[in-house]
């Protein structure tokens, strides 16, 4: 899969991890969103801009994340990948 290949390459270079690896209660800062252009833009508009803090509420597929006061139900599969910088231990 092209998208995941690109994301993996970025992840290896920058020590970012896919959002789906976060466990319940873990936090991370958005480090990049890769995939279909229109979808990426929409996600950015929803607040997944680089540096935004995400909080994994319920991992799995789909997962629930908390992002600046909003809860989002979230499933990306092969369409797009969100990478995060693990920030702060689990709270």
């Amino acid at each position: 899969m092209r998208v995941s290949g690109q994301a993996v390459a970025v992840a290896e270079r920058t020590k970012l991890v896919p959002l789906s690896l976060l466990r319940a209660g873990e936090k991370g800062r958005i480090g990049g969103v890769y995939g279909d252009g229109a979808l990426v833009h929409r996600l950015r508009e929803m607040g997944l801009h680089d540096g935004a803090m995400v909080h994994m509420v319920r991992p799995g597929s789909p997962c629930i994340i908390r992002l600046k006061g909003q809860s989002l139900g979230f499933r990306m599969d092969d369409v797009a990948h969100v990478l995060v910088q693990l920030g702060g231990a689990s709270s």
Partner: protein
Amino acid sequence: MSPVTEPHRVAVALIGNPNTGKSTLFGAISGIPQRVGNYPGVTVEMAVGEFTHAGRRWSLIDLPGTYSLAPRSPDEMVTVDALLGRTPAVPPPDLVVCVVAANNLERNFYLVSQVLELGLPLVVALSMVDLADAQGTTIDAPGLSIRLGVPVVPVQAHRGIGIEELKGAIARGAARPAPPPESPFPEPFQDEVRRLESLLASEQPINGACTIPRYLVERLLLDTSGYLHERLFQDCPLDGPGIKQALREARERLAENHCPVPEVETLARYSWVARTTQGLVAHPDEHRVTWGDRLDSVLTSRLWGSLFLALVMLLMFNAVFTWAKWPMDGIEALIGGASQRIEAALPEGPLRSLLIDGVISGIGAVVVFLPQIFILFLILTSLEECGYLARAAYIMDRLMARVGLSGKSFIPLLSSFACAIPGVMSTRVIEDRRDRLTTILIAPLMSCSARLPVYTLMIAAFIPERRLLGGMIGLQGLTLFALYLVGIVVAAAVALVLKRTLLRGAPPPFVMELPPYKWPSPRVVFRRMLERGWDFLRNAGTIIFAVSIVMWGALSYPRMSSGEAAPFLAERQRLESRLAAARGSGDAAEEEAIAAGLADVANWLEGAQKRQSLLGRAGRLIEPMVKPLGWDWRIGSAVIASFPAREVVVATLGVIFDVGKDAAEGDGSLRLGSALRAASWPQTGRPLFNIPVALSIMVFFALCAQCVSTLAVIGRETGSWTWPAFTFAYMTALAYLAAFLTYQVAMWVCG
């Protein structure tokens, strides 16, 4: 463009993210909307209301909730056009009120930054302050107001707090000139927008009809999908290809200048948001657990959440069927009363028949669905308003993804079990065009309430009452369950096929806001319910009505010749004179028996007329086609008659099998059941109906598109007649094939 009658009315546009309480605020300011703007091929609605403040009259335009003013689809374009005064459907706004949810200020301010660029006076209404308090978020509204340069008014619409202050701010804002548009974009980007503007101005034809506002020029540069370019230049004699070239070059220069399009927009706006809210909005260090979080930990859990959803669905269907029963009975009684009155007032003849069997029963067929639609939307809107539907979509996403859809398709499909019409209408929440279409196309396969009378008739008459698994399950109940399952399984298969062929695409991503829980606003719920009911009456109603009249014609003409009717009339005359004699002698038992005999004659006469009619002839014509399904021409014509609306089949069967059209009421169903059991093939005398025939009829009804209203609504929602035609064709073909297989396999099994 303001209405001629009221030159001084000021138009205010209301915009905001979804789930900000915008509709509640609209209701609190202007009550029930006066009119709703509708657009062909576009599914968004704009309500226009009115209010009086400071001795003036104001119009309030409720625009659809949106996260962003980036037009990428016709639906989104309508909102932007309305804000820029580029559509005749609503008055051009003189001022914009942007509703901002305090619990999620950053994302809401993204939209504010776009609205600020429109160059219109702006008032920010700050809602959901109580939710922000519960989260521990503090907001300095006066400080924000100073930094933004526009009024920021805290409101609690459901309690009526802040409404007068908001109206005051609107009045003051409208009296002032608009603030100069402020761009959050970096210098290189603004330079490119200016360059593009002057290029467009040099291309501008003299009539000026194609003036493109600055905001759209900026969007043109940002929209890499090409939608806006196509849209703006489709009816504009500007040099489209030349501009495309200029756009490409501008984007290349921007990429070199570290302003990649479209990322530059979210980067610029979110850094503007960060600058604007710095020091004025404080979030707690640690997330404070609210009661909503506790509720979510149960309602979104895989086990408890699924169980709760199942319970909600069960209660909802129960309510739709039981609550709707008495208003539906009431409507049927009213229709019956009206028919009787006409029957008494008019002599027997074609006009009376047209009025009773065509017009009145046509109106009845439409209105009788209103209670179910109202109740379903009352419940669904309440669940949506309190925030639960988003959780239900989340729970169901895993399952829906298996057939190539997302959780967002779940609610429309769920509604379709009551009626496909509201189901199709509620697909508007699905943004992706292909998913929305797939959902619309499979929604009519869900067994709706109109199929239930057919199922109950056939099951009661032909499926033996046998207990299985030690008395736990009845065979009749199992058959009913299997019929519902047939619809679901076929729908899943059709969705899979569609998503691999016509509407090819990977399962759509699922990104859905799970809004904070809140109490539903009765006013909003009531308003949506009325809108849906009205939608149904206007769209489906007119077509059902027209088709009912056509079917009446097909069942009534050509009339029987007097020679053909003579034996029935002679019999009637004989019975009538005997009745008079019985009355004279006071023999009550004899009188009753003769009256029953008279009713039978009337049913025979009607049956003979129906066999003679266009529809009866059509039934005979298609008999060779339906014979492989185990049907004769009588079942064939009843099925043809039920294509406009499947629920009429019971009444039509009643007429054709000489039981009378009251077969759908009271003990009529039992009488029809025994009449069907007694029916036989004329050549061989072997019973017409057996279990395989009953099964093939039920499977046919489970899968066939026998509902003109649904097809009409699909036509409206998809903006073309291709999709309803496709739905009709594929469902009818599937129904025929499945009924054929059912009959042949069942015959083989039954020996």
